């Protein structure tokens, strides 16, 4: 835009000067002709000055002492008494010798009219070009909006594309061949990726399910072998390790199945559940554990808080949070459970962790303090929160690790609020 304006400005100036040059050349040529006719006139008249033939032309002849200076063209301004202003004239000076008398002749030719012409030409040009540029701009903007809209739509959709969402990846049609090609290729690509992804997912899910039965066999056979009772300590030890490993494996497996199920939204049935009831029975179940660690339990529970959730997932959510809070607690520490209408906060004493808090929710992330844990608890919590649109966040304050689940407004709002 600015470049084209610059070029245009430059062009106008160049155009003006070239026009000027052209006009000057023409005037010069005319004045040259005039000079010849003037000399002829002077020769015929022997003397005296003939009046200039038109208003736009003046001739001044005055005697000088010696002739011989070359023809000289110049621009000059002459005061016009009638219009009381200076006007531009082209001037030709030459000397001529007649009858041994040298004369200097000055021919003036008005440039006023040609100047006007030039100006009007330039003006017309300018207006035309400005109009042209404006139309171009408008057309350009409009057409590019038309043409690129498909492109920007595509960019936006790619940006938002989520393999896990079950939405179709539909792109806007475009008349531009290149964009239509792009969309076609993109569509084919996402379809391929999606089907690969689904295949892989299905495969892992099936594998997980199929693994459970052989695992059950390994498990039960090992248990039987334990009962046979004719083994050395070394054999028992080997057996015990294998047994432990099979238990770990099956726990991993069933947890991964659970994660996949949450992702696939296979827990559709929801009802109002009471987080308080879950917390109460859970704390009861973990009571001896809590007591042995000398953990002080602080309950700050608002009455009658209900959340609309799948009961099983609600339990999983709270169990995992509380379990973590017990496991990562310090001896003589505190465990604080806060339930409000809008949020659930579970905090426990502990030393500050240096790790990136985003890593906490990653699968198989383990803190160094408890290497035996599966590292899947918080991944489950996060998946459940994502499913219900809850907001989960971690904070470390007042020497406590806090996990806060903010229930979504509308979904998790307290529906049975006590009117008092």
């Amino acid at each position: 835009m600015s470049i084209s304006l610059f070029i245009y400005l430059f062009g106008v100036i160049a155009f003006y000067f070239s026009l000027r040059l052209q006009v000057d050349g023409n005037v010069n040529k005319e004045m040259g002709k005039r000079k010849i006719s003037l000399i002829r006139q002077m020769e015929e008249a022997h003397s005296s000055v003939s009046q200039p033939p038109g208003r736009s032309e003046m001739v001044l002849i005055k005697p000088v002492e010696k002739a011989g200076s070359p023809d000289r063209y110049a621009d000059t301004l002459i005061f016009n008494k009638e219009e009381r202003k200076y006007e531009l004239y082209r001037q030709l000076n030459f000397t001529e010798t007649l009858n041994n008398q040298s004369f200097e002749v000055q021919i003036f030719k008005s440039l006023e009219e040609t100047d006007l012409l030039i100006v009007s030409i330039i003006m017309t040009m300018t207006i035309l070009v400005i109009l042209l540029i404006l139309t171009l701009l408008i057309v350009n903007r409009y057409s590019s909006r038309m043409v690129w809209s498909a492109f920007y739509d595509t960019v936006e959709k790619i940006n938002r594309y989520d393999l896990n969402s079950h939405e179709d990846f539909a792109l806007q049609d475009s008349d531009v061949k290149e964009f239509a090609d792009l969309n076609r290729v993109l569509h084919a690509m996402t379809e391929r990726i999606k089907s690969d992804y689904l295949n892989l997912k299905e495969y892992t899910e099936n594998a997980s399910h199929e693994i459970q039965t052989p695992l059950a066999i390994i498990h039960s056979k090992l248990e039987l072998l334990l009962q046979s009772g004719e083994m050395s300590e070394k054999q028992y030890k080997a057996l015990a390790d294998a047994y432990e490993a099979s238990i770990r494996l099956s726990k991993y497996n069933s947890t991964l199945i659970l994660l996949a199920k949450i992702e696939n939204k296979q827990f559709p049935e929801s009802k109002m559940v009471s987080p308080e009831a879950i917390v109460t029975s859970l704390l009861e179940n973990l009571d001896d554990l809590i007591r042995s660690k000398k953990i002080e339990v602080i309950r700050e529970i608002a009455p009658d808080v209900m959340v609309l959730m799948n009961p099983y997932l609600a339990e999983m959510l709270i169990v995992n949070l509380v379990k973590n809070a017990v496991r990562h607690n310090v001896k003589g520490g505190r465990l604080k459970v806060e339930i409000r209408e809008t949020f659930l906060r579970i905090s426990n004493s502990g030393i500050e962790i240096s790790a990136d808090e985003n890593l906490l929710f990653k699968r198989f992330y383990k803190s160094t303090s408890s290497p035996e844990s599966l590292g899947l608890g918080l991944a489950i919590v996060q998946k459940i929160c994502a499913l219900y649109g809850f907001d989960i966040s971690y904070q470390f304050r007042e020497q406590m690790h806090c996990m806060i689940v903010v229930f979504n407004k509308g979904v998790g709002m307290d529906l049975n609020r006590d009117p008092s």
Partner: protein
Amino acid sequence: MVFKLCYFATSGIILNFVMKILIIEDEKTLSDAIVEYLDGEGHLCEVVYNFEEAIEKIELYEYDCMVVDINLPDGSGLDLIRLVKKKSIAVGIIIVSARNSLDNRIEGLEIGADHYLTKPFHLAELNAHLKSIHRRISFNGSNELVLNEIKLIPEEHRAFVLDQELVLTKKEYELLLFFISNKNKIITKAGLAEHLWGDHMDAADSYDFIYTHIKNLRRELLKKGCKDYIKTIYGLGYKFDLS
């Protein structure tokens, strides 16, 4: 129903009732393992590997208890449960399923199953459930469990040694009951942990507590004059050894 005479040291002669158990599990190795574990518990076990055979058995005979896999190659175990429930009200049913699906669990329990075990499960856990069904069916409420000098009243969660009541926490009582249900068998720590805390605990976390509970339980039993039945097996688990 089959009755046989049994002799117990402290309670004298009582009629012990033998459960007829039908095991429906298409995975042959697994059902064999179940039968082998239950062997010597004094039950009559029959095994079938598919839906058709199971229907046949159920039509022909009466069972006291059924261990059912839901996913059978030619049908659903849930239908078998409905069928057997129609015939007998007292029948005990334990579902074992590879799919830890909440729907199946709820539906199974609604149509009358007593327990739902997810594969892989501990055989000791299955045995403990069978024992509790056994108690429910055989004693019809007046429910006392006697083993040498130990006597349990499961309904009231009370335990006695030589008629002196033991002071036990809830978990310790459950531990004792689990031991008695699986007497003379090695019970792994993982199996104990799962029985006591369910899925709520990662096994490794709870081993220390198992140790503490066992220590307390043993001390309490010895204090009341009970023999030391609880044996530790090389860091693997424990055995309630009557031999």
